């Protein structure tokens, strides 16, 4: 702990998280939405590792972060496949066009 406490890391995590959320909310490109998701997960990961470092849980936080990374990779693969499928069906990646679920 050389001056930077847990607050700093949590702040960075928060910024990454909010950026991810805003990215998801604003990008009309499906790939962009995926990137927002990656950012959100990354922000969470920062928190996990920070608590692992400053908390009393030992390596549990890091293990969780590892699992999140793995999940993110899997999610990216599936989501990308979905986006490609969507693209093949609609010839676009604009998520606003995917409104079949409208009530």
């Amino acid at each position, binding site marked *: 702990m050389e001056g930077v406490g847990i607050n700093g890391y949590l702040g960075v995590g928060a910024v990454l998280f909010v950026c991810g959320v805003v990215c998801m*909310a604003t990008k*009309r490109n499906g790939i962009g939405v995926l990137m927002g998701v990656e950012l959100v997960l990354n922000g969470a990961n920062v928190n996990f590792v920070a608590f692992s470092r400053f908390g009393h849980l030992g390596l549990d936080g890091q293990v969780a972060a590892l699992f999140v990374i793995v999940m993110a990779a899997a999610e990216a693969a599936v989501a990308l496949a979905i986006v490609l499928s969507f693209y093949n069906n609609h010839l676009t990646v604009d998520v606003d066009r995917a*409104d079949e*679920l*409208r*009530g």
Partner: protein
Amino acid sequence: MCGETAVKPRFTHMPLEQYIYTGTVLKWLLGLAWLLPLVGFAIEIFGGAWGKRLDPVAGGRKLRLAGYLAVFCIGTGFLLSLTALVVWKGGTGVALMPTAEAVSHGDHAAPDGGEHGSDDHAVDHGEHAGHDGSGDKPQQATEGDARGQSPAAEAHGHGEADAHQEGGGHEAHANDPYAAAFSGTYYELARFGNLRLTIDYYIDGLTVLMFCMVTLIATCIHIFAIGYMSDELTEDYEDHFVHLSGGRHFHRPGRFYRFFAFMSLFCFSMLGLVIAGNIFQVFVFWELVGICSYLLIGFYVERHSASTAANKAFIMNRVGDFGFLIGLMILWTYFGTFQFANVSPAGSPDAANGPGLFQMVRDSRGDLQVEETADEQVVMLQGSGSADDTSSPRSIPYWLLVAAGVGIFGGCIGKSAQFPLQPWLPDAMEGPTPVSALVHSATMVAAGVYLAGRFYPMFTPEVLLVIAYVGCITLFIGATIAIVATDIKRVLAYSTISQLGYMMLALGVGGWAAGIYHLITHAFFKSLMFLCSGSVIHGCHHEQEMTRMGGLYKKMPITCGAMLVGVVAISGLAFWIPLAGLTGLSGFYSKDAIVASSLAFMAGNPNHFLLFLVPLVTAGITAFYMFRLWFMTFAGQPRDQHVYDHAHESPRVMTTPLIILSVFAVGCAWFGVLENWILTSEPAHVAAGLTSAYHVLLTMPSHHAIHAMHHTAGTAALIAAVTGALLSAVFYWKGLVDPESVRKPFAGVHHFLVEKWEFDNLYDVMFVRPVHVVASWCTAFDKYVLDGILHLLSRLTVATSAWDRKFDETVVDGLVNLLGNTTYGVGRSLQVVQTGRLRQYVMFIVVGVLGLFVLLIMFFPRA
């Protein structure tokens, strides 16, 4: 061989082990004989109903397996009963034949029927011998009851017991009136407090005798029925007595198996009634006999007359059974047990059940212990109740004991067709003839007499007087109607009523043995005559009117001969045979005994002279109508050529039973065996008679007194019978006097008799029509009051439901609809939010999270 022997049989008192052994063997032998017909019934009814396996069709004719099975069951029962007889005789050492000892005491057994007077000496001698043997036991004169002598048999038996069984014998039975009896329990059904409902047995000489008689006669009747009922061995039986519209007759499948199933059940019921060891069990089997007779009388159920007759028989029996029930209630209330007598030796499990009815009401000498209390007479009960209830001696008011006796006898009136419940019996002729034979000889009507005999110790002199008068009236009514009846079976039916009256009369005037005696002999010759009539009816193709018969002796000689045997037996005729003296058929002896008893009774009670005169006159009438029947049927010229031409002798399966029964009808009373047998189970108080005790102004004749009258009575009865027979021959055989010419002046009387003393009309006016009137009142009440109430109620209900419907439709449905509509509307309005746009959803999530946090911070601020 004269039938009357005055020496009572004596029981060699056996060791306890032998007693128990004999009792056990008898129990199982008779129990098996009793249950076999039930097994037969079960197989026949289920096999017949389910598979028709019991009368399968072979070569176009159905086989008779059901009949063979029924015969097998009852026949095996007969063999078992015979075995039981041997065991019983060997075990108890009863002398059935007049023994050499008895002969040496008094040569009464000499074949000298005319010399009845010598019997008096025999009696005296026997009794003196008894006194000698019991020198250590001084005569005790019971209070107010001036007995002439102590019963010879008991005294003598006591002496023998002392002599032969020093110390180690069956001492408990030394002075016991129930020494030759065995009682116990097969199975205890239930126990309610003190009330034990059990299947008991009570076996003494009478039981064994009834078993042998019932099974023998039933076997003969079953064999006969195989031939008689062979009409039913077809899938398409045409009933000529059921007329349908269009002149056709009713067709139905034959019911061979059903007939034999019911017959087996009937035998089972009767045997159960005989072996029963308590009065409640008797009642159960009593009802079972009733239902069996109902089923069999109504066997041709499609005939209206048959079903009506069955109903009549059943309902009339119910009337009597009502009295029976009242008697049962009184007995249970005051005695606390239903058992007849508990003669189990001390130490056996059954001995703990306390004494039975007979033991409670009579002391060891058979006397009633009557005491005068402040306001009524009471009968003190012996050995009151159970062991733990010895605090105060129990007693029963005298009038209640009388009421119980009359009540039980009420049941006997119904079952034995006594006045005033006799009309059901002639109607019962609607059943097949074997049924009539069975009902009228060995089973149904015998049950009433049997019960009266079995329950004899419970009857006070007043009850006996009632019994005597009922029997007297019945026998006269039956005989007079029989004179004018023309249906062959109805003549026999009225004759049955009359003879049953004789039995009841005998029981009532103190001739217990005479009554039972007549029951047995009558069973033989009446079943014989019914089977003969069945044979005639079968041979004449269901022609029952005697006015269309005649001269049948050429066509059916065996039947004719057998019928003649029966007629002579029932008439009580006797013949002078050089070597044997005056010898009669069985009926002669029993009727003789009855008339002697009633004469002795009249001697003691001169104001009851009718009890002697009526049976004497009726003896003549009996001979008259029975010979009339025989002459009209078999003798003379054919009255209806058509019937005569088609008549034929019955097959051997039907005539063989006739011959067997003839043998018994002729000889069952010879050598005094039967009478000795009956005397073994005579209640202890009968032999000594009763001279008017202070509480009753009746004199019951003792054996001694009856014996003194024997000669006179026998002669009178024989003269009456011969007169009747000769008159009958004059009218119907020789035709010297035309019956029509006699009938003319007495047209009114004749009509009265043909109408059966107007009993049916009387009951119609007394009971049936009032019931109809009451029924119509009830109908009116139903129609106008009850229906009105019901209609009102239903209208109210309809109105209420209309309101209810409105409530349902508006309030309940409204609520449900409101709920549904609201949900639908909310969904509709929320539809707007559901844009399907991904990015908007993300925004919603974020805003939602924000909102949640804000709420959290607002409402749950950090402490």
